[in-house]
Each structure stands twice: as C-alpha cells, then as structure tokens.
C-alpha cells in the first residue's frame, strides 16, 4: 500500500477513506480508533490490547457533513461539538443530545459514528437517530450497505458490523417539525444516561418518531406509542386546530412508551425507576414538542 504510512506494525494511518476500507479488509483484526473516548479507556485499563490500531481520526473527508434532498449525511468523523455548533436547526434532537454528552473535552473528540460502533444501550446519539429514522452507511471492499438504525443494534454493545466493515457515515433526515431529547442522570454534566428519550414530529407526514435509551438491551423505538399517537392525533383532529393535547392522549402515549421498555436493575438505577422516569419524560417531551408546533404553526414547516 504505497499511499499508506506504516510507522509500525501496530499502527495504521490511512491517508484516504479508500485506503482505510482496504486496510480493514487486509487486517480484519485491526481496531478502528476515531475520537478514542471509548477505546482509550479500554486500552488504559488494559481491558484490550489490539494487535493493530486503524486510525481514522486524520481523515478530513470523514469530518464533513453534506445536506441534500432533505437529508444530512454525517461523515464518520463528525463530533458532538460539530453537531451542536453547526447542525442545531437541521438536527435538533441530535444537537440536544450532543449537548449532554460528557464535557467539552469529550464532545471535541467523541464522534457519532464511534457512539454507534460502541453500541452502548445508553449511547446518547441513539434515541435521536431512532426517532428521526436515520440510516447507517457501512462500507467494505465488498461494497456499501445502508442499515436502517432500527436494525443496526443486535445486543448490548453489539451491532451488525462485519469484521471487514467500517461506518462511513450516518444519514439523518433534516427536521420537518419540532424535536425533543431528554436524559435523566445523577447530575447535570458528565453523566451516562440512567434513561433517555427522544421524540421527533414529522409535520408533512403527520408522524411522530421515538427513541428510548438505557431501558432495554439495545436502544429501541417505541413503535406502539408512535402508532397510537399518529392515530389519535388524526382521529381527534389535532392537526387541524393544534389545540392543547388532552391528558388522555398524553398519558396514552406515555404509558405505551413505558411499556416498550425492558429495563434492568443496575448500578445506575433500578428498573422500576427507569419505567417511571420514562413515562414522565415521554409526557414532557410530547407536551414541549406539541406546544412548539402549535406556536410555530403548521405552515411554518
């Protein structure tokens, strides 16, 4: 590989994305490193000592986003800081979630793609990506495949990536209505979610999307709750007059969100607390988003 520097057998720094993809096929055991905010903790504590690191952090072409046809394509190098500084109006839920991640130091390095690859049930990018129906674009020498976010996670810290595959980008539909994200933790900063929830209204299609974090073995959608809300809003004529939602509709939604979860007891909180918190978050985010929609007016979107 002439285009690639090999400063040592244990470290590969591709100069282009194409080289990175080729190197991953040649060295399927090589571990990608991007922001390093998950991986370095493992290395520092000697939980793993990969034979080879594949450094993606110097690929400028990954540190980009592109807007086209109502979609923002986030390159795999895009950080939380990038999202919250530049993409707040296109991707409000993801930007809200990005604001809650770690500290400035973590947000400056940590990437959305790294969050996906780690696939923690508590990853903060996941609920917004679920609520907005994002797609993960994965590449290997065999080609590109687009994985709908709902099928990306296969278990706690597991995902569909094959050993020769890398995440190239994430495609997120631009917001066409109000979005919310809410996270419960033990303090305001530097905290892993005890439970989290995202909600996104797509006004033109009169659809709501949802995403739940930290309340099941993987991040999940609350599909039942979303279908219920879509049906009730249409049936009761809420889209016509934007009146305040009835307590019945709000509770019906919140109960179904809570029912979608399969939480466990762990060090960050008992299962019962998570279900309770989720119900409260679902209620609040729905009220916030609906009132934003009523204020902006349906025609603003």
């Amino acid at each position, binding site marked *: 590989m002439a285009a690639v520097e090999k*400063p*040592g057998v*244990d*470290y590969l*720094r591709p100069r282009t994305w194409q080289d990175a993809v080729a190197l991953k096929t040649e060295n399927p055991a090589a571990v990608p*490193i991007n*922001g*390093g*905010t998950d991986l*370095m*903790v493992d*290395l*520092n*504590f000697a939980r793993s*000592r*990969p034979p080879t*690191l594949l*450094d993606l*952090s*110097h690929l400028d072409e990954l540190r980009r986003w592109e807007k086209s046809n109502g979609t923002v394509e986030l390159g795999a190098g895009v950080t939380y800081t990038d999202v919250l500084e530049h993409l707040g109006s296109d991707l409000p839920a993801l930007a809200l979630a990005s604001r809650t991640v*770690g*500290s*400035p*130091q*973590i947000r*400056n*390095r940590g990437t959305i793609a790294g969050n996906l690859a780690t696939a923690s049930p508590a990853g903060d990018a996941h609920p917004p990506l679920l609520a907005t129906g994002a797609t993960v674009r994965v590449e290997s020498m065999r080609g590109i495949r687009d994985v709908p976010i709902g099928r990306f996670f296969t278990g706690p810290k597991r995902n569909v990536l094959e050993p020769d595959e890398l995440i190239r980008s994430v495609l997120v539909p631009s917001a066409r209505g109000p979005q919310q994200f809410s996270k419960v933790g033990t303090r*305001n*900063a*530097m905290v892993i979610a005890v439970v989290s929830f995202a909600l996104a209204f797509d006004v033109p299609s009169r659809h709501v999307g949802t995403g739940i974090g930290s309340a099941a073995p993987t991040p999940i959608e609350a599909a039942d709750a979303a279908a219920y809300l879509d049906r009730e809003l249409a049936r009761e004529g809420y889209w016509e007059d934007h009146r305040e939602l009835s307590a019945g509709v709000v509770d019906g939604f919140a109960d179904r969100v809570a029912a979608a979860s399969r939480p466990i007891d762990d060090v960050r909180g008992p299962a019962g607390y998570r279900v309770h918190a989720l119900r409260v978050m679902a209620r609040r985010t729905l009220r916030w988003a609906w009132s934003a929609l009523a204020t902006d007016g349906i025609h603003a979107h």
Partner: protein
Amino acid sequence: MLIEVTVNGRRRTAENVWAGESLLYVLRERLGLRGSKDACEQGECGSCSVYLDGDLVCACLVSAGQADGAEVVTVEGLADGESLHPIQQAYVSEGAVQCGFCTPGLILATHCLLEANSDPSDDEIREALAGNLCRCTGYEKIVSAVRLAAMETAVG
C-alpha cells in the same frame, strides 16, 4: 513506533512507543513534562487537559499513534519564562489552588473558554469547566478566578 510531536512549539521525538499508549503517558513519562496530571485515565477528571491541534482534549484519551505529527500545548507552554500567564496568576490571586492537582487542567480549560468567550457568565464558566474535577476548593474560588482572568485579559 517513533513519534514526533510539537509540544509548546518545540519538536520532540519519542522512540519505541506503543501506538496505543496515551499521549498523557508520552508527555509525562517519555518527554518528562509532568504538568499535565494523571488521575483517572478515563476522561472523567480533566486533569490531563491539553490542546491537540487547537482543540481542548483529555490527553489520556488520545493515543500516541494519533498524536504523531500533532501540535500539543500543555500547561508548561502558557507561562512566559518566570512570569505566570494571567490565568495562572488569577488562580493564585483568588486562592483557587489548594493541592493543585486539578489546576493545570483547569488552567487549560479556562484558557480555552476565554479564547472563545472573553466575558462568560457564571453558567457558561461552569459548563466550560464541567469536565474538570477539583476535590479541594468547592469550585467557588475557581469560578472567581475565571472571572478575574476574564477581566485581566480584557484589560491586558
């Protein structure tokens, strides 16, 4: 591997480095720069904060391989010879330093904040320093030090 890093404007090299060891380890153990502190090694405490190519980062979460060819600024790069940087002076003046372990990281985080925002509110100060833990001061004096540093740098 052999790595070359520009630290505080000087080109430095280190040999026989494992690509997966941290930049913090390189700075402290290979280059003898002990200003950046090593406490948690998991990004939680911020005492290892440095600039990496202009971004504030935890040096414990950057691998040596990634740092090869980079420009790093550590707390040792702020003072001008024997005279303290105004931010360092503000921490001393306000009594924001007790054991001092957190101080280098906080100085860097304060520097980064004031570069972007020369007149931060208390909330903005707290948010910017959220990744830096101090076990001694209770933070009040640190926030005062940042306010003082903001004033001093605005005047100077």
